[in-house]
């Protein structure tokens, strides 16, 4: 015990000293730029080129029929990176609209694989493949339900891989919406005890899902020059701009630091950056809304009882979805669905239920959940950073800049995260 106290004290002092001696050097100070550009290669934690990873699939619900139009989501897919010897197993939950194989997910998988863990990447419950194959309600967004679905998937996945890998203990992490879901999963696990997660790490989670999606919706609505009817002109202008810069910069690698190179040559205006972030979110939510609408036959965007197949055009539905905000979805499809399922459901109740505030007592009490976010995370409303700091106390690490997940793969962030799991 004494030794433990000593180690804790020592690490406190060293981290204090560290904080004072070394300023945070993630290079992008504008939160919108950070969110769009991410971490330039030079500042990224060094990662292996290739790792031992396999894409696996399974059936979650035996009686579920996948509509022909989603034939490519015929089965639930996830990926496993595995060690040859005994090691901890970490699950990573993707952010809004992201799959197990999204770029950030692949990088995070490498981070943890390099640290010596088995790693299982799971798609977000807002991602098409998950909605079609693994969601109970197929109406995503209710964190309590989505966490339960994720937990079921984890159990099945574990059942599928446990003969192959030697696991010492279980960890859990997730970024953005996946971070918030991880907190709910940890709480569920404390009741079910299937994994007994030893450590859980939340990366840039929303405090209130509703607030965060409202912020992102507004970012698009307020920053598209001339409004959504003029998106075509905006898109053309962006394409021309990129093409000009591309020429100006000569040979650049599109896969690597293209956006960072652009940013160095000619930083984009803040309203354009905001529009781009809003757009990326709108594309995710369009994908989600359309998929959910088709599989539930809700008649929200696609006429009720109409069966779509491969040759059918979806272009018009895409146009409608692109004009549908997440808040529209919440009010017009999500809320009526849960109203129909349980009596006495109110909108305020639903909004509160998909917030970290609804499990605040648990978050204060538990010692295994740590959190990292940024002072300038743009999905957080004023006061929410302070809220997180207050609830998580010493388990919260708040960086001064990095936007929303922009610094997630910055060396210092990665080191901190790995130290947490290994410490």
């Amino acid at each position, binding site marked *: 015990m004494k030794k433990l106290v000593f180690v804790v004290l020592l690490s406190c002092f060293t981290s204090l000293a560290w904080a004072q001696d070394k300023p945070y050097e993630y290079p992008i100070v504008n939160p919108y730029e950070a969110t769009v550009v991410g971490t330039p290669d030079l500042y990224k934690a060094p990662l292996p080129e290739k790792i031992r990873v396999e894409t696996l699939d399974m059936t979650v619900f035996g009686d579920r029929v996948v509509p022909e139009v989603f034939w490519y989501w015929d089965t639930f897919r996830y990926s496993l990176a595995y060690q040859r010897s005994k090691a901890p197993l970490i699950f990573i939950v993707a952010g809004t609209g992201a799959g197990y194989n999204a770029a950030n997910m692949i990088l995070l998988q490498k981070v943890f694989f390099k640290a010596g863990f088995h790693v299982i990447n799971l798609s977000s419950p807002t991602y098409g493949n998950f909605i079609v194959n693994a969601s109970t309600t197929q109406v995503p967004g209710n964190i309590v339900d989505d966490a339960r679905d994720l937990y079921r998937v984890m159990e099945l996945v574990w059942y599928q891989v446990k003969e192959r890998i030697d696991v010492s203990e279980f960890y859990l992490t997730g970024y953005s919406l996946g971070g918030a879901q991880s907190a709910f999963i940890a709480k569920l696990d404390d009741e079910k005890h299937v994994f007994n997660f030893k450590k859980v790490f939340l990366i840039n989670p929303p405090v209130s899902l509703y607030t965060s999606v409202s912020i992102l919706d507004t970012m698009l609505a307020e920053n598209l020059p001339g409004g959504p009817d003029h998106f075509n002109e905006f898109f053309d202008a962006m394409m021309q701009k990129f*093409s000009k810069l591309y020429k100006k910069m000569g040979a650049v690698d599109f896969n690597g630091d293209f956006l960072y190179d652009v940013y160095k040559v000619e930083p984009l205006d803040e309203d354009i950056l905001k529009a781009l972030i809003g757009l990326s979110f709108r594309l995710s939510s369009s994908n989600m809304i359309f998929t959910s609408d088709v599989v539930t036959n809700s008649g929200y965007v696609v*006429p*009720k009882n109409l069966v779509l197949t491969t*040759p059918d055009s979806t272009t018009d539905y895409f146009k409608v979805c692109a004009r549908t905000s997440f808040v529209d979805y919440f009010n017009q499809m999500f809320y009526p669905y849960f109203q129909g399922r349980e009596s006495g459901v109110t909108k305020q109740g639903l909004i509160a239920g998909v917030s970290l505030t609804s499990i605040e007592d648990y978050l204060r009490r538990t010692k295994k959940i740590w959190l990292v976010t940024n002072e300038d995370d743009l999905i957080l409303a004023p006061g929410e950073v302070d809220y997180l700091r207050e609830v998580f106390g010493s388990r919260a690490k708040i960086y001064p800049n990095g936007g929303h997940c922009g610094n997630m793969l910055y060396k210092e962030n990665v080191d901190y995260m790995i130290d947490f799991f290994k410490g």
Partner: protein
Amino acid sequence: MKAAKGFLLLLVGMVAFGCASAPTRKGTIEPAERPVSEFVKPDVKYVIDAYDPLESINRRIYKFNALFDKYIYLPVVSAYEFVTPVPVQEMVSNFFNNLHEVRSLVNSVLQLKGGKACITGTRMFVNTTLGIGGLFDAATGIGIPKQNEDFGQTLGFYGLGPGAYIVLPIFGPSSVRDTGGLVFDLATYDLMVNEIIQSGLDLNRGEESVLTWGSTILDAIDTRHQQSFRYYETGSPFEYELIRALYLRSREILVQN
């Protein structure tokens, strides 16, 4: 070559017309809560709009391509990558890229773009000599960047619009104009390669045909090996629209440059 074309036509026919009838759902069709009639404005130009009169066939071919990729093309490419050492893979890519630069050369000339033609000519010369028959891309190393011109762009340069969007079997996104361009470029390439094989090398007919077929197949494998695109990795149910828009816009920009 004829056999291959016949096989291809058969496959396309199967995909385009031989599909099972659409499944039905009980109940009458009711208008959506957010109907297209209300939310899609006829006077607005959308990014994902395209002249795509063959959309239903194109979508079937897109699906065929995804299946072909998954069950035939990618497994073959993976096997190739497994048995071939990485440096050899790179040499193969350099070799074919060098041969295919004849496309940029011819089309730069056709568009009277002297600078691009010179750069490409120099690249081919440097890579064929210094790069040992094209196995090494020496030109990029000494700062002579690769150009990208094709006959579709040449036609565009002289004012021809893309026409209808077309998804070609195996080749993927294209347009009427670019399909014509592709045929021209492939013919030019064939002409050059046949010339090299027939007059440059001392082979009998049997050897010639083996070499022609072998190089065509290896070229096809290497082409896929060099592309990182994977079907449905966008995670979007609107991938068809996204790819279509991106293809048409990027071609427009390439024509301008």
